[in-house]
């Protein structure tokens, strides 16, 4: 039966980034969905092969605006492991602080955008107002609000002066108190509950089967967290625990992200309080020996995997970036089928898609039913033929 095809995107207010959905919907219910990404495909991997280790880091930072530090640290960590050079403890702590601050600003950003998508603008304004505190700390430490560019092969570019550490510590109590209000707001706010509960539910087996990562997987009870599975930087020393939730739907993902905010605050406070002394950089050799590594990093949206292969020169022979959002796209498609159109932005936002990282492809839904684009007369005929109470 031909349904109406609703093209959402690439320019659509709900999606902050260009993704194109062709929703085949029957009235308000979604029947099939074809997702077409890669409006952001820029050929970053080809470019990375022509740049040496100094110039490739700024390029990799700009793969995605929100998780820029993740890409740079994953790459730097991989190259340092191939070169077998250990970075000084102070550099490890500074990288962890910036990583957790980025996770906080990314989760606050997501909480605001999710609330905005269901029209709840007050929470949107509040969360983003508190995010400014995190942005100020990041700007003091690295000089820029978004692309921090603090990594270098062999350590960190700039040091943390005691005044910066104290300023950051001064901001933490306010953030902790605000995050606690968001925790119980998410559990009690009426409209959030109505719109989030039971939407886009993923059972634990489904989540595993579709290869979901990060908060989306942890909301269905899977306790994969690369910071615990494959400890790197200072995560093995800081006291924190993996946050999981049982009810697998958008509401569960919101709870996981908000409680992860609390964990990040604990890590940042721990790292700031006992920041070890010592150098922040180790002189790294110009060329990396021949080798190959899969560098895994826990980005705010999930597990980020950089496959790096070097061939003895000062350039990378191949870098394959698999971003967390790319892993989550299959689960989105499977959740969206026979849901409401009004839920599309909420479900899509629930995996917190970062399309700039993704810039890859996915095709969804193996139903072979043929659906063509129908004109208006068809729409009117179909609308009139259907009985009114089904509207």
């Amino acid at each position, binding site marked *: 039966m031909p349904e109406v095809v609703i093209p959402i995107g690439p320019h659509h207010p709900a999606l*902050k980034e260009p993704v194109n959905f062709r929703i085949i919907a029957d009235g308000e219910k979604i029947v099939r969905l074809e997702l077409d990404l890669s409006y952001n495909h*820029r050929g970053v991997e080809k470019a990375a092969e022509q740049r040496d280790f100094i110039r490739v880091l700024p390029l990799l930072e700009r793969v995605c605006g*929100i998780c820029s530090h993740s890409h740079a640290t994953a790459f730097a960590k991989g190259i340092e492991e191939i070169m077998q050079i250990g970075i000084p403890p102070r550099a490890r702590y500074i990288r962890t602080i910036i990583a957790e601050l980025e996770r906080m600003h990314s989760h606050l950003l997501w909480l605001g955008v999710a609330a905005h998508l269901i029209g709840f603008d007050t929470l949107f304004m509040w969360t983003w107002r508190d995010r400014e505190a995190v942005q100020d700390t990041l700007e003091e430490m690295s000089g820029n609000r978004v692309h921090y560019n603090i990594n270098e092969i062999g350590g960190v570019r700039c040091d943390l002066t005691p005044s910066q550490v104290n300023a950051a510590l001064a901001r933490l109590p306010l953030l902790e108190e605000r995050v606690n209000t968001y925790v119980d707001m998410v559990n009690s706010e009426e409209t959030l509950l109505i719109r989030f509960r039971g939407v886009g539910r993923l059972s634990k087996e489904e989540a595993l089967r579709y290869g979901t990562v990060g908060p989306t997987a942890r909301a269905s009870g899977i306790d994969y967290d690369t910071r615990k599975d494959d400890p790197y930087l200072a995560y093995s020393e800081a006291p924190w625990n993996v946050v999981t939730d049982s009810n697998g739907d958008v509401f569960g993902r919101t709870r996981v992200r908000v409680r992860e905010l609390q964990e990040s605050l604990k890590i940042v406070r721990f790292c700031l309080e006992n920041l070890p002394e010592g150098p922040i950089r180790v002189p790294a050799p110009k060329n990396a020996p021949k080798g190959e590594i899969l560098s895994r990093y826990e980005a705010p949206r999930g597990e980020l995997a950089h496959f790096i292969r070097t061939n003895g020169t000062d350039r990378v022979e191949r870098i394959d970036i698999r971003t967390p959002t790319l892993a989550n796209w299959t689960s989105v498609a499977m959740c969206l089928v026979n849901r409401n159109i009004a839920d599309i932005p909420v479900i899509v936002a629930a995996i917190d898609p970062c399309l*700039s990282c993704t810039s890859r492809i996915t095709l969804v839904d193996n139903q072979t039913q043929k659906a063509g684009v129908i004109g208006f007369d068809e729409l009117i005929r179909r609308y009139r033929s259907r009985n009114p109470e089904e509207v």
Partner: protein
Amino acid sequence: MAVPAAGLSRRLMNWARAKSPWITVFNSGACNACDIEIIACLMPRFDIERFGILVVGSPRHADILIVTGHVTLKQASRLRRVWEQMPEPKYVIAMGACGASGGVFHGLYHMMDCVDNVIPVDVYVAGCPPRPDEIINAVVTCLDLLKEDAARGGKEWRKKAVPVSGTDTQPGGVIP
């Protein structure tokens, strides 16, 4: 203008256009750092609603189109279609280094480097990503351009300038 009322109504229109610029954001393949900085403008700290700036969803309602990011090949035709949907007097702001020259992604195989290849751009904003106050400053410069265009009747005065081919010492440019 023989009739003083016509002058008055034109002044009133210019005042109204300057006081309520509605913007819409188009992400043409950017790393969405610029997008989150634009949203940061809406927030209590920078709050652009006090200048009357409103972010609207549909290009039909917008005056200023803010294009973030360089234009990927796939986005080029879509960007052009969105630009054509906007009603006159419309202005384009190209955001950040990517909008101006493709930034760090200049010359990659899936890119049309800068926004100027696809649609005429009125204001460029420097920075990667530009700070929210720079974005507000860009909108304000756009409004000054709007007043200037209204005074000189349309955008032709900007194009009439004779382009000088660049010599090795003095770069090419446009003499207004």
